[in-house]
């Protein structure tokens, strides 16, 4: 049996207004080389100044990851030449801001803790564009943007766990508001390292870059695991290298290295003194830690009896979760609320290409619909129709029912007449039904509903149909 071992390095952009070591704005709206200054351009004689907000947010993240925070961490230089790296070195940390910690995920075999090795602060590089004519161009707007590097232990066993880990990690960053973690915007970059081995000992690992979505991460890991297995099966050895994921070809292609052998010549950044933290700094950040995704997940299931997949949707979008809880708070049953939200509202939004924040329908509307079903004013189908109609208008449910004359008919005479008419108009079907073709019952219900414009109480229709048919 082959066993895959996966560790993941994540670079998350810390949500600050300004860069890590200078006052330039973190913003990518305007022209290239607009948000630059002597510091982030590495001009002669400049010195870095640590962005306190970035430190605070990194501390907060470390707390949310249950990591041990180092009261004294050290900035260091990682030296290498590349056009997007202005100083010829990147400022990173040799003693990280935090070590240890974990992210808890749910696997087919239950809960699993993915251990974190370290979390440290560093600066981003600029952006390099390649052209066909032998020139490249550099834009330094991104140079010096604060990043948190979060490194997992190699304890992930397959692509599903990897995705579950990354999804949960991303949720945590968003919950504590330390990063927007938008993968498409490059705010959450994942670099998994993958090895395959038959033995206990870890095999030779490869690193995969250029993964712009969780889907890509999943496919790339799957691809790389099977590629490595094949190499070993064929009696070969895996080469330690960095691969680039090609989304079009759906394959990982070996990358040419920047330098023959990495010789980064790490040493303490002499332009910065150690980063000292104090208990107050840490306690202050503790206050900003909300209910975390796992806690929320467990609580939603226990408190509302909803399914795991449903809870996962809510955990992924705290605004939807809060909407759900407010609906229930206003008196809607959790079962109705979760169904209406995840199927009807999200379905409609999906169709319209809109965001959850665009809806006008309020949690209390859901409670109103639930009430009308309970007092038999409307049935579920009508309720859904109303729901779909008012998602973007936020009209009052009661008014909508009145104006559109949707109140359910429970008048037994009217229903009885309709039932009789249906039986008379469908003599053949009645005969087949009497001969044992029981599934036709549904057809009769449908016909009656059609005559009643959908407003008949389905319970009454069922009962009356059965009575009359059975009497024959």
């Amino acid at each position: 049996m082959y066993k895959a071992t996966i560790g993941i390095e994540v670079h998350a952009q810390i949500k600050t207004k300004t860069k890590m070591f200078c006052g330039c704005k973190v913003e990518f709206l305007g022209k290239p080389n607009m948000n630059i200054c002597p510091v982030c351009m590495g001009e002669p004689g400049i010195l870095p100044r640590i962005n306190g907000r970035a430190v605070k947010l990194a501390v907060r993240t470390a707390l949310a990851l249950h990591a041990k925070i180092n009261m004294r961490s050290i900035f260091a230089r990682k030296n290498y030449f590349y056009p997007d790296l202005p100083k010829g070195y990147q400022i990173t940390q040799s003693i990280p801001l935090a070590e240890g910690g974990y992210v808890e995920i749910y696997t087919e075999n239950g809960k699993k803790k993915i251990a974190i090795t370290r979390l440290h602060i560093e600066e981003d590089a600029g952006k390099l564009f390649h052209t066909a004519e032998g020139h490249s161009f550099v834009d330094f707007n991104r140079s010096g943007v604060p990043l948190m590097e979060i490194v997992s232990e190699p304890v992930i066993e397959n692509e599903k766990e990897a995705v579950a880990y990354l999804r949960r990690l991303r949720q945590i960053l968003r919950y504590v508001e330390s990063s927007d973690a938008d993968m498409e915007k490059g705010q959450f970059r994942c670099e998994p390292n993958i090895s395959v081995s038959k033995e206990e000992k870890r095999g030779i690992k490869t690193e995969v870059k250029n993964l712009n979505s969780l889907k890509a991460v999943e496919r790339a890991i799957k691809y790389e695991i099977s590629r490595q297995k094949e190499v070993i099966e064929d009696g070969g050895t895996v080469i330690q290298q960095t691969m680039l994921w090609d989304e079009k070809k759906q394959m990982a292609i070996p990358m040419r290295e920047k330098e023959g052998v990495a010789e980064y010549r790490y040493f303490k950044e002499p332009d910065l003194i150690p980063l000292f933290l104090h208990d107050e700094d840490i306690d202050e950040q503790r206050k900003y830690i909300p209910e975390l995704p796992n806690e929320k997940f467990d609580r939603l299931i226990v408190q509302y009896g909803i399914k795991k997949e449903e809870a996962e949707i809510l955990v992924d979008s705290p605004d939807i979760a809060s909407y759900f809880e407010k609906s229930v708070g206003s008196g809607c049953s959790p079962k109705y609320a979760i169904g209406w939200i995840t199927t009807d509202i999200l379905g409609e939004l999906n169709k319209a290409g809109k965001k959850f924040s665009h809806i006008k329908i309020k949690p209390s509307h859901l409670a109103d619909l639930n009430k009308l079903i309970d007092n038999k004013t409307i049935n579920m189908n009508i309720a859904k129709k109303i729901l779909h109609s008012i998602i973007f208008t936020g009209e009052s449910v009661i008014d909508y029912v009145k104006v559109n004359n949707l109140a359910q008919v429970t008048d037994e005479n009217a229903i009885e007449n309709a039932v009789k008419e249906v039986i008379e108009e469908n003599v053949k079907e009645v005969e087949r039904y009497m001969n044992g073709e029981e599934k036709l019952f549904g057809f009769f219900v449908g016909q009656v509903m059609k005559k009643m414009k959908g407003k008949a109480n389905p319970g009454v229709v069922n009962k009356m149909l059965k009575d009359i048919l059975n009497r024959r």
Partner: protein
Amino acid sequence: MNNKELLLNATIEEIITALKGGEISVEEMVRFFIERIKKNNLNTFVEIYEDEAIERAREADRKLATGNVHGTLFGIPFALKDNIAVKGHKLTCASRMLLDYTATYDSTVYKRIESEGGILIGRTNMDEFAMGSSTETSFYGNTLNPWDRSRVPGGSSGGSAAAVAAREVVFALGSDTGGSIRQPAALCGVTGLKPTYGRVSRYGLVAFASSLDQIGPICRSAEDAERVFTVINGFDERDTTSKEVEKYNLTDNTTRQFKVAVSNDLNDTHLNPDIKLNLLNLLNDIKADGNIVEEIDFDFSKYSVPVYQILSCSEASSNLARYDGIRYGYRAEKYDSLFDMYKKTRGEGFGEEVKRRILFGTYILMAKNSALYASSFKVARLIRNKLKETFTKYDILITPTTFNTAFKFGEKIDDPIQMHHSDALTSVCNLSGNPGLSIPAGFSRDGLPVGLQIITKRFDEKTMFRFAKYVQTKSDWHRALPEE
């Protein structure tokens, strides 16, 4: 004092008084010094900002006319070493690499001097990227020692020291990583201060070795050095390695008794006998005043140079990685690819000594040698502790500033090891972080200046200046002028 005497010999304080008294105008003074620079032709300056300086001088004169005179350095002409940034002016570090680079921001020290009324005359020559002890590695050619034109002014702040010695400017700033202020000050017979590490902001000083670099003044006298120091010292939020200690204020002139330790370097056989003689005479005078003077074992000058080399070259190799021909500076004309462009640009843009040190530092920082860099700090710690201990018993530690007086051009340039040993007595302070001040202490028999180095506790420049001012009362050496 007539005007010429005033401009050649007065202290900053006396000059400002004369300006206020209307004895001379700022413009006259600025023109006087610029004339001297041109006439002396010592190659002290790499660029003179004549029009700008005269413009500023006129502005100062208008203020004088209205009695609106403020600033510790009001109207005082000064120069900056060519590794200190002034926005809109070239900043070349005397290197081909940066010949076309214009600074885009102001250094903190320049801002502070400017706001106290100083008038910038120009940039002074130096060893390329401050790497050298003779100013011979400059792309702009040699600066001549005003005491003997066949000799070096020392380095790397050779232009600054020679300019002050030749009275081409009232004061100049230099930078000191292993002795680059004190050694040329000694060789040119002027006063040079390397402040405590963290006292003066490094923001805008082109980095050589970040852990050791400090900016400091080169002046005619201890009084002037202290005055300039009061302006440039103090915490700067742009340099977070600068210390949040109380800003330095001028000391009173009350002399008191000092407990003086003299390092046994005075008995080193390598020490030029003329230097030894001068210092011994001076020490006798000090003793005669009732001060305690005791010799102590302080061996670190034997070890400081190799340790300094390891540490400074390592950091330099990283600090100078930014010169890659992309954002500013020299770029080779022909290349086949990115990495070829890097290698040619750096191969052609840097001079020999700079390349040597970058290479050395790169080698030291390679993973397999990393113990060397880390261990150099062990020695630094040892020196620091030894000095700390010394200063529990003594107020002052005295050493010669250099083992020798100014040497001839070309004498050491081809022998890097010999050249590096010029820093033996000074680099001790850079490694430990302590302040060091070199003051004139006489002349050799062939008429070359001799320097005395005063070291005190970290952040105790106060005692240092008190002592220096006291020593100055023993002689007129700091007023001696080279022949023109």
